[in-house]
C-alpha cells in the first residue's frame, strides 16, 4: 500500500511568486490494484510520481509505503553517458542490493541490445536507452512500478514483450500510470484518479475517472 498524507508541493517562480503544484493531497493506492492518474500537461503528474518514488520530497505531508517502489519510468533515466550499459547496470544493481550477474543476464536477454551493452550510452539511440532502462527496472523486481506517460518503448515486438512481462507479474507487481490520455490505462488499470489544479480526485472505476476528465477538458475548451 502507498499512502499520501497531506502532500504539498510548490515551486518558487523566477519572479518571486509561488506555484502550488500539489495542494494537500490525501490518497491511497491499495496493494493489488493498478491505478491510473489522468491529468493535463503541466498538472503535476511527473511531480506526483517523483514524490511517490521518493526522488523528491514534498514541502509538507508525507508518503507511507509498505511496498518497494520503482523510480518513475519513462523520461530521462539516470544513466551516465560515458559509461556502458553494462556499467550503468552494475551501479544500479549495487545500490538496490541485487546480484550484478543476474541483473546483467536478465537485461542482456530482455533489452536485446547485443554488443551495445558494452558500448557507452552516448552511442545509443533513444529507443535503445529506453529499452535498457525498462529492462533494468524489470530486473529490479519492484512491487510497484511508476510509469510516467508511456509504457510503450521500442518497436511493436518489444512492446508486446513488455506487456507479456507485466501480465506475468500481475500477481506480485502493480502499476501506477500517469498520463494525459486514458488509452495507456485501458489495458492495465483497475481504477484511476484525476489530477487537476493541485487536487487529486480518486474514482473507483476507470470509466468514472474518464468521464470526469472529459468534462474537465470540455470545460477548458469552452
Amino acid at each position, binding site marked *: 500500500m502507498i499512502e499520501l498524507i497531506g502532500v504539498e508541493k510548490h515551486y518558487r517562480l523566477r519572479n518571486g511568486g509561488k506555484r502550488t503544484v500539489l495542494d494537500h493531497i490525501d490518497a491511497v493506492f491499495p496493494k493489488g490494484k493498478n491505478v491510473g492518474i489522468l491529468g493535463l500537461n503541466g498538472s503535476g503528474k511527473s511531480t506526483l510520481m517523483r514524490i511517490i518514488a521518493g526522488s523528491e520530497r514534498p*514541502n509538507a505531508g508525507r508518503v507511507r509505503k509498505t511496498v518497494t517502489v520503482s523510480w518513475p519510468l519513462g523520461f530521462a533515466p539516470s*544513466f551516465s553517458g560515458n559509461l556502458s550499459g553494462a556499467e550503468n547496470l552494475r551501479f544500479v544493481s549495487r545500490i538496490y542490493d541485487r546480484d550484478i550477474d543476474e541483473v546483467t543476464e536478465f537485461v542482456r536477454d530482455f533489452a536485446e541490445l547485443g554488443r551495445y551493452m558494452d558500448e557507452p550510452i552516448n552511442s545509443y539511440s533513444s529507443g535503445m536507452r529506453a529499452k535498457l532502462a525498462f529492462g533494468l527496472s524489470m530486473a529490479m523486481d519492484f512491487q510497484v512500478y511508476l510509469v510516467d506517460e508511456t509504457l510503450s518503448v521500442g518497436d511493436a515486438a518489444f512492446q508486446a514483450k513488455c506487456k507479456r512481462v507485466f501480465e506475468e507479474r500481475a500477481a506480485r507487481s502493480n502499476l501506477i500510470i500517469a498520463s494525459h490520455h486514458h488509452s495507456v490505462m485501458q489495458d492495465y488499470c483497475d481504477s484511476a484518479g484525476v489530477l487537476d489544479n493541485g487536487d487529486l480526485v480518486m474514482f473507483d472505476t476507470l470509466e468514472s475517472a474518464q468521464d470526469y476528465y472529459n468534462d474537465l477538458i470540455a470545460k477548458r475548451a469552452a
Partner: protein
Amino acid sequence: MDLSLPAKFGRQLEVFGRVVYALILREARTRHGRSRIGYLWAVMEPAVQLGVLWFFYELIGRRSPVNASMAAFLLTGIFPFLAWRATAVRGSTAIQSNLPLMVHPQVQPFSIVVARVILELATNLVVWLFFILILRAFFGEPLSSWTDEPLHLLTGFGALALLAFGFAMFNAGMARIVSFWPEIIRMTARVLFFTSGVFYTMESLPPRARDVILLNPLSHVIEWIRSAALPGFDSMHYDPMYVAVWGLWLLFVGMFIDWVVRLTGHVEAH
C-alpha cells in the same frame, strides 16, 4: 515492517555503505577511467608542480629550509594542498553533477559527498606513496623518515581528511544555494596555493605575516604533516584544535544546509 530503532539505524547504515561504495566505483570510472591515460593525470599534476618549484629553487640557489631534501620538503606541502583542493573543488560540484542519480531515493547528497571525498583522498594518497617510492628509487630518499613518527603522521592525515571533508560538505551545500560557488572555490584555491606554506615554513615568515597566514587552517595541516614526516623538523606553529574546529564547523554548516534544503523540499534545477 516496523523495526526497532537500532535495527532501523543498522539498516540505514548498511544502505548508506552500499550506496557510497557504488558511487565510488562509478565515480572512479567516470573521473579518470574514460581515457587510457586517465590516471596518468593524477600523477602528472604533482610531478609538474614539484618539478617547477624544485627547478626555480635550484635556479635561485635556495637550499631546503629544513634538514631534509628539497624534494621531500616540497612534497609534504604539495600533497596536502592537492588533496585538499581536489576534495574542496570536487565537493562543490558533487550535487550538481550527480543530480540525475538522486532519482533513486537512497542516493542522498551526503552519500555523494562522502563518496567523492573518499575517492579523492585515496587517489592522492596512492599517488603520494608512488612519489615516495620514486624518490627512494632514484634520489636515495630514505623511507625511514616517513615512518619514524607513525602516530604523529596519522593524526596529521586525519586532520587533513577532516578539513577536506568539512570543506567538501560545506561547498556542496553552498553550491546548492549559490550557483557560482565552484568558481569561488577554484579562485580561493589558486590564492591558497601561495598562502598555505606549500613552499615555505611558518618559521621563515615575519611574525605579522605568519599570524595572517596561520588564519588559514590548511597551513596548520601542512606544518603538522611536515613535523611528522621530515626528520629534524618540528614546528611549534600549528594548532591541532584550530584545524579540528574549522573542520567540524564546516561539516556542521554543510550538513545544516543539506537539512534545511531537504526540509523545505527545495529542488535543484534539472
